[in-house]
């Protein structure tokens, strides 16, 4: 035979042959009959079955006849195909060829419908409802049931976001199994029994899971709905577009649904290698910011101290005048929201149009060693050879450094959990305390005071093939990134850097860093500059070192930088919000490209409105280096004004054309440019890092001395998934499911301070303080306090402190 099936080539020993409705099919050993049928295009109706949940066999809808179980004998009774493992030689007859199967399925549908309300016309699910569809396809026209249907009060808010209409529920337990198996948040459970069985929660503990929206999506009826979408639209009135989520570097595929040019809802897309079929609630529900009155729709220019609406030509002229006046004394702050194409536009704009290397995407605390680490380990790399989601499952051991996946990269969290549940994965986290997320990963927590991570990391036994995930916070611990790279190299473990925002990885690739040109080319390398200059058809690229974001803002504040071009960023995201504001206020000239009013536009001289994520195409590179297509969800009659088009217009007007004005062109040019190969061949862009062996401390940190009710401690912090980020504005139900803002301290520190659970403590940094309730956290490392980075009302940027800094903790502080 010249033709081999794909499966044959993979693992011939593991294949078995079964016959379904007379069609022979080879399937891997262990395949369930319902999956085997799918492989040859036979759809067996089902409700409880979900390929990513453990089989349960509860709804009994998928009954098939098995005249031969492979041993010559058949099953006397029809079998649920969702729990039936294929055996060699098994004969399976579905509803297409078996009266027994057909009768069983019809009967089951009748049972499911006897207590199901006929409210399809007002049900959100109507039109995309598996129950409705299968009743039409496999059911009978009329019910023989003459009783009164079972009813319950409705709906029950099982969280602020998720609503339950119990009488619609078919008790498939997908939601409760999801919460228990996939996300590890069993705040919902089946309660009562028999005909009264229902999905329930404990009234005082709502279903506040970061992943709660998934249960709405997998509900095969309209029993679970979201406050955000309930009664918003009919499925058949929606136009769906596959796109990529803009909220973090996870790169989840989304299905975004719009009606009347408004996004109505977002669903998890099906991307088996990335998010499988899940996403987080932020990605699902946080899409209404900038869709309100603060949306900027027309250019603004500052006149007599105030912004006024201007025409596009007028605004372009004003911007060009300001930028031209600045000469080369300009910098670019791009933030983390940009697509790869837009980021590339800014990178090229800085070098070609403004003639500077002062460009930085890091609208957050950044470490001194970070750029070198990114240059050596991230930039210019591709998916090939990179650590992937799938690799995490099978790595055997994954170590987390400066990274809290449940909060900072929720789909990595889900994938790790899957590995732990199914593949014997072990997770170790170097963290100040055992978080709920760590507990759900059954993780070994190496309780580490901020700053001592290097020693902790070196003390771990990693093996070849293991994975080391470092978060962006790791950059704030001197030497930690370098140590991670070194540990990976010496042990053979694989290293991956997990940034937080969707645009971060693309920004590195596009060269939105002072020391990096596109494709990982060092800006300091003459050959690299010549290479890029040739491609860009310019004489040369600036050779002078650029400033990073903090440097630019400081220079601007001191009057040393004449102009700033700023994409979307928020001052509180930086280490010191006040310094950012000062920089913006004292820069000679600020051009802002934004979609909504912000602290930046308030201080800008010219503001250009740019398109929302759903209005233009592009690409996000996720942490794996995997490109995810961003597609236009809301079609507009004219091409939208994107960052790229605005930059191109400014470049044209400044007489130094950008050369690209559409995402397609930008991507083509970046792809053509390719990635950097050091002609010297040694490609050691990694500078000699100061490996601070002296930091290797083996003694346990002591409880800090408390004097007059005050203690000096190290600050541990990360962003909670649902927090004060502006991208989440406007979605109240989502905000209501956020975790509370708490200050975590060890029991010993609490005792030393004399505070009890829930008492207020004040956290003071360089530029301020705020007060939070205390959460006494057993197992928390001594000498540290943990607070969320940007929860509503308490953004750390206002205190001027970052992870690892010393802060003062004191009792009380209620205002």
């Amino acid at each position, binding site marked *: 035979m010249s033709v081999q099936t794909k499966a044959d080539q993979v693992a011939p020993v593991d294949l078995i042959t079964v016959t379904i409705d007379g069609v022979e099919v080879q399937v891997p050993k262990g395949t369930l009959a319902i999956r085997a049928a799918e492989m040859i295009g036979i759809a067996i109706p089902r409700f409880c079955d979900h390929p990513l949940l453990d089989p349960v066999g509860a709804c009994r809808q998928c009954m098939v006849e098995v005249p031969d179980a492979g041993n010559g004998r058949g099953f006397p009774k029809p079998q649920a195909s969702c729990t039936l493992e294929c055996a060699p030689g098994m004969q399976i007859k579905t509803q297409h060829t078996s009266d027994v199967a057909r009768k069983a399925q019809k009967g089951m549908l009748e049972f499911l419908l006897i207590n199901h309300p006929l409210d399809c016309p007002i049900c959100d699910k109507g039109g995309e409802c598996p129950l409705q569809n299968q009743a039409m396809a496999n059911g009978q026209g009329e019910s023989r049931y003459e*009783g009164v249907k079972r009813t*319950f009060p409705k709906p029950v808010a099982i969280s602020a976001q998720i609503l339950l209409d119990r009488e619609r529920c078919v008790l498939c337990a997908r939601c409760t199994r999801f919460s228990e198996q996939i996300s590890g948040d069993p705040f919902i459970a089946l*309660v*009562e029994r028999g005909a009264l069985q229902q999905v*329930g*929660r404990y009234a*005082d503990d709502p279903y506040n899971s970061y992943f709660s929206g998934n249960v709405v999506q997998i509900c095969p009826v309209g029993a679970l709905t979201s406050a955000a979408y309930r009664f918003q639209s009919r499925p058949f009135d929606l136009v769906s577009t596959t796109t990529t989520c803009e909220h973090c570097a996870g790169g989840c595929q989304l299905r975004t649904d719009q009606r009347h040019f408004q996004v109505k809802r977002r669903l998890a897309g099906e991307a088996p290698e990335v998010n499988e079929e899940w996403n987080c609630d932020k990605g699902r529900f946080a899409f209404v910011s900038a869709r309100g009155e603060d949306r900027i729709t027309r250019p603004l220019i500052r006149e007599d101290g105030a912004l006024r609406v201007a025409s596009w030509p007028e605004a372009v002229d004003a911007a060009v005048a300001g930028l031209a006046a600045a000469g080369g004394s300009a910098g670019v702050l791009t933030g983390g929201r940009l697509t790869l194409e837009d980021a590339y536009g800014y990178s090229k704009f800085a070098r070609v149009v403004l003639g500077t290397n002062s460009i930085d995407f890091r609208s957050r605390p950044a470490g001194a060693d970070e750029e070198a680490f990114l240059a050596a380990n991230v930039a210019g790399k591709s998916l090939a050879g990179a650590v992937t989601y799938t690799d995490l499952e099978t790595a055997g051991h994954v170590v987390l450094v400066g990274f809290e996946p449940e909060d900072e990269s929720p789909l990595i969290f889900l994938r790790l959990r899957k590995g732990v549940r199914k593949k014997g994965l072990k997770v170790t986290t170097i963290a100040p305390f055992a978080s709920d997320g760590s507990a759900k990963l059954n993780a070994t927590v190496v309780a580490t005071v901020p700053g001592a991570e290097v020693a902790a990391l070196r003390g771990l036994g990693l093996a070849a093939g293991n994975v080391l995930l470092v978060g962006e916070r790791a950059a704030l611990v001197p030497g930690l990134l370098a140590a991670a790279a070194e540990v990976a190299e010496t042990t053979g473990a694989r290293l991956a850097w997990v940034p937080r925002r969707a645009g971060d990885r693309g920004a590195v690739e596009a060269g939105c860093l002072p020391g990096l040109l596109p494709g990982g080319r060092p800006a300091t390398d003459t050959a690299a500059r010549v290479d890029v200059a040739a491609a860009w058809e310019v004489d040369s690229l600036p050779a002078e070192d650029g400033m990073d974001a903090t440097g630019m803002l400081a220079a601007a504040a001191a009057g040393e930088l004449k102009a700033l071009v700023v994409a979307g960023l928020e001052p509180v995201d930086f280490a010191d919000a006040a310094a950012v504001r000062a920089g913006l206020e004292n820069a000679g000239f600020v051009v802002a490209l934004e979609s909504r009013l912000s602290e930046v536009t308030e201080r800008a001289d010219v503001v250009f409105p740019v398109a929302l994520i759903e209005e233009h195409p592009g690409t996000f590179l996720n942490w794996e280096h995997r490109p995810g297509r961003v597609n236009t969800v809301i079609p507009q009659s004219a091409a939208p004004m994107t960052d790229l088009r605005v930059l191109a217009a400014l470049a044209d007007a400044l007489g130094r054309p950008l050369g690209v004005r559409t995402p397609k062109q930008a991507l083509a040019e970046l792809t053509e440019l390719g990635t950097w190969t050091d002609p010297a061949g040694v490609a050691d862009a990694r500078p000699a890092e100061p490996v601070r062996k002296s930091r290797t401390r083996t003694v346990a940190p002591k409880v800090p001395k408390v004097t007059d009710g005050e203690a000096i401690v190290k600050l541990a912090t990360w962003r909670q998934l649902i927090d004060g980020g502006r991208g989440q504005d406007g979605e109240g139900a989502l905000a209501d499911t956020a975790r509370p803002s708490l200050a975590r301290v060890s029991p010993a520190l609490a005792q030393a301070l004399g505070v009890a659970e829930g008492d207020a403590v004040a956290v003071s940094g360089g530029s301020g303080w705020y007060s939070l309730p205390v959460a006494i956290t057993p197992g928390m490392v001594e000498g540290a306090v943990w607070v969320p980075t940007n929860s509503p009302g308490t953004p750390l940027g206002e205190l001027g402190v970052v992870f690892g800094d010393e802060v003062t903790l004191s009792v009380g502080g209620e205002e």
Partner: protein
Amino acid sequence: MSGHEFQSFFGESGEVDMSDTTTSIDEATMSELRELAGRYPQPRSALLPMLHLVQSVDGRISPAGIEACAEVLGITTAQVSGVATFYTMYRRRPGGKHHVGVCTTALCAVMGGDALLERVSEKLGIGPDETTPDGTFSLERIECNAACDFAPVMMVNWEFMDNMTPQKAEQLLDDLAAGREVHSTRGATITSWREAERVLAGFPDGRADEGPSAGRASLLGKSIADANGWTAPKPEEQK
């Protein structure tokens, strides 16, 4: 009359009574809950006994009881609630001092259980799943209690009250109401439902030696065999 009346609206189902937050669970209870959890290779196995203990302390499954079990076992309150609402012996609302059950599964019902339930219900002035205003009695129609050879069967605080008749039932209720000593036909002196729940939780009350070894019906076959000289074969006979 068949009893389990058809009902389509289940307004109060789904959870315990969250409006009654009273509790008598104290540190001693917590330590007994932890003791129960420690009796099993995996602590969660103790959940059923722990809920029995909660009932013995709070007279029902209280919200505080659910929270205490969740805390001791490290599981969610929803998971505890799912268990507490699954099993029929767990009560949502305070029961009476004496919990009276009348079996109305087929055989007992046919042999007089239905009539017994009606009589008991009339006498107490309450229906199934209700408690008398003075808190002395609560009533439940129970399913088969594994005493069919003593049908019709009633239970008081889960003690057997065999071979019931309406007259005997009235006498029983009168005696209990008057605080007279009442003995189970195959069990101990009747104490209270809460004390029974404590035993079910796994804290014996030392009354195992009360009552007979067996009822007459249980011994019937043996007595007929004795009368006829029938025995099992002697082992030697086989060789």
